């Protein structure tokens, strides 16, 4: 939902702090995930992630979450799905050229990142193009799995 999505950007700092703790929990629980089996967990975890992040960020389940480096504004909501900053078509009022009723996702992202502690630097990281094999998969599980590889 658009208004909730904008709320999340306004509260990017709080969400950043929460996410940091949440990440630690996910990573610590790696042995548990491993015992159950990552493959088996994929579907239920992705479903939970879709609901939670769907409400908060209008998550599109690209499977490669970059919220922490885009000021808690999901770049996949950009009509061009740009992952490295805005296009040149931002309107004078900061709205999208394709969807005039929506504020530019990247202007929101910039504002959000300025509120964050680590988000300011992370904002400058150049994101790799999306790996379409990961679409619909849980980025939380990937994070937990990657930290133990």
């Amino acid at each position, binding site marked *: 939902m658009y208004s909730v999505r904008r709320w999340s950007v306004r509260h990017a700092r709080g969400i950043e702090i929460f996410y940091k703790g949440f990440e630690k929990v996910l990573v610590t629980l790696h042995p548990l995930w491993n015992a159950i089996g990552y493959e088996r967990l994929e579907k239920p975890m992705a479903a939970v992630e879709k609901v939670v992040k769907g409400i908060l960020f209008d998550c599109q389940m690209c499977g490669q979450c970059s919220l922490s480096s885009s000021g808690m504004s999901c770049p996949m909501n950009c009509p*061009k799905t740009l992952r490295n900053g805005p296009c*040149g078509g*931002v309107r004078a009022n*900061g709205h999208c050229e*394709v969807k005039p009723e929506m504020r530019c996702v990247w202007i929101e992202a910039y504002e959000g990142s300025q509120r964050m502690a680590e988000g300011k630097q992370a904002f*400058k990281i150049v*994101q790799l193009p*999306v790996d379409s094999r990961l679409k619909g998969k849980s980025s939380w599980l990937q994070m937990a799995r990657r930290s133990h590889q």
Partner: protein
Amino acid sequence: MMMYGDLAHEADPIIPPGHSSSGSLERLLRSRTFVVTTELDPPDSAQAEDVYRRARIFDGYVDAINATDGSGANCHMSSLAVCALLTRAGYSPVMQISCRDKNRLAIQGDILGGAAMGVSNILCLSGDGVQLGDHPQAKPVFDLDCMSLLQTGRKMRDDHMFQSGRKLTSAPKVFLGAAANPSALPFELHAQQLATQDERRPYVSKRSQIDISTQGFPRCCGKSQRLTFRVACTAIGKKNRSRGPVHPNSVLLRFTPLEAIHELH
């Protein structure tokens, strides 16, 4: 017929030291000359003569000709084909690649094909949204964005490999460019985006050609003084598009803040 020195028929043209391409645009930009380029709106036609007719208008006025890639998300002759025709006739084209219509396979194929046809300059763009064009039903691709496209082009040119890591037998010797809209808000964000290109990709900044398409750019320059981009001014007449190419005299008149341009050099 204008001769620009971008020679398509030479199998292995000489690349001056410190340059990434053999094209005249890079040479001119590096020599700190004031450079004027223009956009050529590819025709809605299957006739090569239509391309040449549009290009001839600019003979004697411009240093390079941009071939747009489906500008405004409207369907026209492909940028690659227009560039191939222009190099045959001795023009110096800039091949625009937008991420809207092609995925990474097609784009990398076009970079190789363009380079093989004698294209020395590539301008990496995100592309206009399909919703604004004449085929709003089309699927927007945006597999890459302008930044990852630059990265891909650089990897092909400097590391001799596809994005996947597979080796190329011969790398495309091209001059890569990025675009900025300095009148778009917020200035800080756009300036930061440019600076990111600069810091993360020194190879781009030094070889970059920034496409200044509005008069508002001096405002941005103040905020991004760290940037030492060389500037190619592109004249485009969005309003005149329906009437075909802009007349060169009106094109040159667009660049009023000349001092600002010199400051950038």
